[in-house]
């Protein structure tokens, strides 16, 4: 059985507790890296991470891009979207197609 994790600032992630997700509030970069690595090695299929936190540990997140699990998905934090999630989709298109054909429409 797989679990769903949420990493981010306390204010942004608290609500997810009520959904039954496992929530890990973090305050700084080291904590975030550590928790991400721990979750990735244990039974988490999906890890949501707020963009404010994701921004600091992009490299760590990219490690998991090519693996089937976990799926590390950036979500907007309490201060709104930084566009990192969209950026990820855009990069994906550029990698596959060679040029961005989805976002120029």
């Amino acid at each position, binding site marked *: *059985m797989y679990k*769903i994790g949420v990493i981010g600032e306390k204010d942004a992630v*608290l609500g997810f*507790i*009520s959904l039954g997700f496992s929530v890990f509030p973090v305050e700084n970069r080291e904590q975030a890296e550590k928790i991400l690595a721990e979750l990735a090695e244990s039974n988490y299929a999906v890890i949501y991470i707020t963009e404010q936190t994701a921004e600091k540990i992009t490299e760590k997140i990219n490690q998991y891009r090519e693996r089937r699990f976990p*799926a590390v998905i950036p979500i*907007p934090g309490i201060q709104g979207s930084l566009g990192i999630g969209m950026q990820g989709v855009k990069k994906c298109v550029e990698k*596959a197609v060679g040029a961005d054909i989805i976002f120029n429409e």
Partner: protein
Amino acid sequence: MARLNVNPTRMVLTGLKKRLQMARRGHKLLKDKRDELMKKFLEIVRENKVLREEVEEKLKVVHSRFVMARAVMSSEIVEEALMFPKVEVSLKTYTRNIMSVDVPVLEFTTETGTEGDIYPYGFANTTAELDDAISTLSELTPKLLKLAEIEKSAQLLADEIEKTRRRVNALEYVLIPNLEETIKYIVMKLEENERSNLTRLMKVKDMMLEQAHGYGRSK
């Protein structure tokens, strides 16, 4: 283009011709694979974009409601209210095969103690803003998981497309031209050998005739 370093013999020529045929077949297959992957990828990534926009929009609403809730209540009460979830999510994962790329499929079931009761707290100490936030968020759960599934699929497909494209290009622009050139080189070399052999024979014949009968075509 670089010619392969081989001996210009008939046997090598046969071998190379077979390799060329194989390379052409592989190239065609990989090209088809790439095109189909691309088609699937574009479908998925379009969906991904729409879904992400929607989820981000909804999460913004949720966050603003949470901010409201936190403004009205003290943060201790909010934390306490949320501390013990009533809902339990169990997640099952399957894999789906898109053109030999295994992409995840997530299936989740939520279990609550009582039907439709998602609020992990009594209503005495909390405000309606918190209820709003929680209910919006719980409506969003399927979308969040769908997003995870689709975004991962898109990433995996993008990787596979990149790999396939490299292979197609390597075959199309390196291996096949090299083979073609080498084959051409061997064919020409063999023809040249043939010609030089022929002239040598003619020459020898003339020399023998000259010796035996004292006449020949050439002086």
